C-alpha cells in the first residue's frame, strides 16, 4: 500500500466568475506522517489549496478543477461524507467551528454523527482530552475558554476522530507564544503517531524543526517547493537563502522574543491608571484589583499576559467602553468622563467587519476624523493615509468588499485619522502577511515618533520585535470569566 497521503499533479482551480485561476500548475507529494507548510502573501491561494485538500472544493465551493489530486487514497472529487471521516480541519478562529457548548461534547460531536458506539466515543474523547491536557476543562462551556484553550479543544476533536490528515488554517493567529510553542510540540507528537499535517500560516518561525515539506505560493503558482532531506538543512533556512524571498512578502524565519523594559519607568505618561478595580458582574471574579500603571507618551507599549488574562478588558476600560468599579484613569493628568475618553482614544478591535460602516474607503476615513477638523484638512489627511497604507487605488471601493489584509490596514488608518492621545490595537496583524504587517508596523512607529501613545495587544512576536519599546504586564493573570 502506498504511503502517499496527498498527491497533486498539475492541479489548477478557478472560482466561479473569476477571471484568473486561484491555483495553477501545482505538483507535490506528501507522505504519511509528514508535515507540510503552505505559505505566501495574502491572496496567493493558500486557503484555496487547503479547501481542495479538505474537500470543501468542489463540494461546498464550486468552480473548475483540473489536474489530478489524490487525498488519503481517494481521487478528487470525493463526496464530503467520505473525506470528512479521514480529514480533520482546524480553522483560524475556533469559535467558527464549535457546534456544541461544552468541550467534551464538542470533541465528541464528529464521532456522534459518525454513529460510533457510545463506549467507543467515550474512550476516544477521554484519550484526546488527556493528550491535550484538557481533562479538567471537559465540562467547561466553550464560550468561557481562552483562545489557546479553544484551539486545543478543536485539535482534540480532530484527534478523537482519528483523522489521517489534519489541515490547519492559521492555527497560531490567536495563540500566545507559549501556546504556539506547545502546538509545535504537539505537531511533532502527532507526526510520530503517523498523522499527516498540512499547515497554512504566515508565521514561520514556530515551525523550525517541524517541517518535511514547504510550499510557497505566489498568485496561485508554486514559487518554492522543497522537501527536507534526512539530516539536511532546516527548510526555513533553505527558504531564507532564496534570492527572491524578499519579493514573496513573507514573514521572517527567525524571530526572537523581545525582552522589553516595564513601561512605568519609560517617560512622561499620556495615560495613568490608578487603583483600578473591575469585574464584569457581581457573580464573576475580580479581573483587576487595585491595578496601577503609566502608559508613556511617544512610545509603543506592549500589553503582556497569558490568554484570557484580561488584556482586551483593560483596553475597553482605557477607551471608556467599560466602567471600573473603582479607581481612576487619567488622560494627560485629568480624570475625564467616559464620553470624553472615547473622543481621545482609538481602539482597533480584532473583528474588522463590524468596524466598517460607510459606502467607500475614503468616506470611512472621513467619518473617523474628529468633527471639529475642517473638511479640507480632513480630506488632505485621508489622502495622505490612503497613500501611506497602500489603499489609494481602493479609495472608491466599498470597505466590506476589501480583502482581510486591506480591511486591517483600513481600520488602523481610520484609528490614526482620529488623531488619538491613546491608540489601542488588539491583534492588528493576526493573519497578515509580512508585507502588510510591515506597513502597519511602520505607521505605528511614526505615530509614536509624533508623540502618540500606542498600546499593543498582540501575540505576534515579529510585530513586537519590530515596534514595541516597553511592556505593561498584567501581573495577576485570571481565568477568563463569562462575558456579561
Amino acid at each position, binding site marked *: 500500500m502506498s504511503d502517499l497521503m496527498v498527491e497533486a499533479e498539475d492541479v489548477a482551480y478557478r472560482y466561479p466568475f473569476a477571471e484568473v485561476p486561484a491555483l495553477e500548475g501545482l505538483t507535490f507529494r506528501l507522505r504519511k506522517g509528514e508535515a507540510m507548510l503552505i505559505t505566501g502573501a495574502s491572496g496567493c491561494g493558500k486557503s484555496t489549496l487547503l479547501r481542495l485538500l*479538505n474537500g*470543501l472544493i468542489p*463540494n*461546498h465551493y464550486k468552480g473548475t478543477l483540473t489536474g489530478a489530486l489524490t487525498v488519503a487514497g481517494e481521487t478528487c472529487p470525493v463526496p*464530503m*461524507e467520505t473525506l*470528512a*471521516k479521514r480529514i480533520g*480541519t482546524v*480553522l483560524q*478562529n475556533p*469559535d*467558527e*467551528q*464549535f*457546534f*456544541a*457548548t*461544552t468541550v*467534551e*461534547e464538542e470533541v*465528541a*460531536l*464528529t*464521532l*456522534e*454523527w*459518525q*454513529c*460510533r*458506539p*457510545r463506549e467507543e*466515543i*467515550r474512550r476516544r*474523547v477521554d484519550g484526546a482530552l488527556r493528550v491535550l491536557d484538557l481533562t479538567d476543562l471537559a465540562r467547561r462551556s466553550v*464560550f468561557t475558554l481562552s483562545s489557546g484553550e479553544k484551539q486545543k479543544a478543536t485539535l482534540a*476533536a480532530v484527534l478523537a476522530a482519528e483523522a489521517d490528515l489534519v489541515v490547519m488554517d492559521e492555527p497560531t493567529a490567536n495563540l500566545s507564544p507559549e501556546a504556539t510553542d506547545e502546538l509545535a510540540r504537539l505537531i511533532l507528537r502527532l507526526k510520530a503517531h503517523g498523522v499527516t499535517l498540512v499547515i497554512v500560516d504566515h508565521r514561520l518561525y514556530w515551525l523550525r524543526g517541524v517541517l518535511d515539506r514547504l510550499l510557497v505560493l505566489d498568485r496561485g503558482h508554486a514559487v518554492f517547493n522543497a522537501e527536507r532531506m534526512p539530516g539536511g538543512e532546516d527548510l526555513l533556512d533553505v527558504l531564507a537563502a532564496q534570492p527572491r524571498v524578499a519579493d514573496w512578502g513573507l514573514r521572517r524565519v527567525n524571530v526572537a522574543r523581545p525582552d522589553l523594559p516595564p513601561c512605568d519607568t519609560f517617560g512622561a505618561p499620556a495615560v495613568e491608571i490608578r487603583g483600578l478595580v473591575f469585574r464584569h458582574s457581581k457573580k464573576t471574579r475580580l479581573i483587576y484589583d487595585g491595578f496601577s500603571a503609566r502608559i508613556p507618551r511617544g512610545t509603543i507599549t506592549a500589553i503582556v499576559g497569558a490568554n484570557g488574562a484580561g488584556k482586551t478588558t483593560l483596553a*475597553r476600560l482605557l*477607551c471608556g*467602553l467599560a466602567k471600573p468599579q473603582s479607581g481612576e484613569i487619567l488622560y494627560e493628568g485629568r480624570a475625564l468622563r467616559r464620553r470624553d475618553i*472615547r*473622543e481621545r*482614544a*482609538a*481602539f482597533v*478591535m480584532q*473583528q474588522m*467587519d*463590524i*468596524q*466598517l*460602516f*460607510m459606502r467607500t474607503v475614503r468616506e470611512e476615513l472621513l*467619518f*473617523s476624523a474628529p*468633527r471639529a477638523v475642517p473638511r479640507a484638512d480632513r480630506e488632505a489627511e485621508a489622502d495622505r493615509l490612503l497613500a501611506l497604507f497602500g489603499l489609494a487605488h481602493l479609495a472608491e471601493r466599498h470597505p*466590506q468588499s476589501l480583502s482581510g489584509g486591506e480591511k486591517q490596514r483600513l481600520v488602523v488608518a481610520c484609528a490614526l485619522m482620529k488623531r488619538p492621545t491613546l491608540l489601542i490595537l488588539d491583534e492588528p496583524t493576526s493573519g497578515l502577511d509580512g508585507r502588510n504587517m510591515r506597513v502597519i508596523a511602520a505607521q505605528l512607529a511614526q505615530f509614536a515618533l509624533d508623540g502618540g501613545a500606542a498600546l499593543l495587544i498582540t501575540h505576534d512576536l515579529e510585530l513586537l520585535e519590530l515596534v514595541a519599546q516597553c511592556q505593561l504586564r498584567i501581573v495577576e493573570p485570571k481565568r477568563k470569566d463569562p*462575558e456579561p
Partner: protein
Amino acid sequence: MRASSVKSEALDIRTRLAISLAVSGVSIYLSGTGPLLALGAATLLYVLASGRYRVIAVSYLAVCAMMAFTVGVIVVSFKIGEWLVAGTAWEKSVAMLKPAMLGNFHTPFLRMIPALNVLLAIGLDFSVQRFVGAMKSLRLPRVALVPLMVFCRFVPEFVDVIRQLRDAVRMRGFSMSLGAALVHPIQAIRLTVVPLTVRTLRMADHLSVAAEMKRVGYAKRPTQLLALRFGKADFAVLVAAAHILALICVWQALIPATPYGPRSVQTQEARHE
C-alpha cells in the same frame, strides 16, 4: 455548580417541555377564575422549585405592570369617549361594554400566568446542548435538527457580535440607543445594518462549512454521548401534573360558563338558537 442547576438537572428537559405544552393547552381551555387560579398556583409551586426567586418576582412584576397598563388604557379610553360623545347612545354602549371589559379583563392575565410559570421553568436553566440533545432523542428529522443546531449555535455568536458592534459605534462617537435611532434614523441604519448583515452572512457561511466538515447532518440517528435520563423524578412529576391538570379540567367542566373561553361561546350560541 449552582444549587439551582442541580435542582433543574433532576428533571429531564423532555419532561419540562411536555409539562409546558400540556399546561399551555389546558390554560386555553380554562375560562373560570377558580380553575385558572388553581393552575397558576400549581405551576407557581413548580417554578419555585428552581430556587430562582428573584427572577420569578421580576417576571411577576412585569405581568402586573402589563395588567395595570391595560386597565389604564381601558379607563382612559372610556373617559375620552365620554368627553367626545356625550349622549344616550354612548351611555348605552358603555353600560353594555364596561362590565365585559373591566369585569373580566383579568382572565387573559390569569391564562398568561401558568404559561409564564412553565416557560420560566424551562428558561431559567436553559442549556442549548440539553435542548438539542432532547430534540435528537425525540428522533426529530434531520432537516429540522440541523437548522435547529445551527440556529442554537448562531444565537450566542450573534449576541457577541452586537456587543462588539455597540463598542465600535461608541468609539466613533455615536450610540446604538433607541433615542439616537429616533433622532438619526438613517445613520442608525447605516451603523448597524451593513456591518451586521456582512458579519451574519460570514458567520452563516463559516457555520455551514464547519457543519460539513464535522459531518453534522450526515447520519439519520446520531449517537448521543451524554444520554438524557428519564428518571423516577420525571415519572413522578409527570404523573402528578397529569392528575392536577385532570382535576382542574373537571372543575372547569362543572362550573357555570363565563364570557370567555369555549364553553361561554357554546352557551351564547345555544342561547341564540
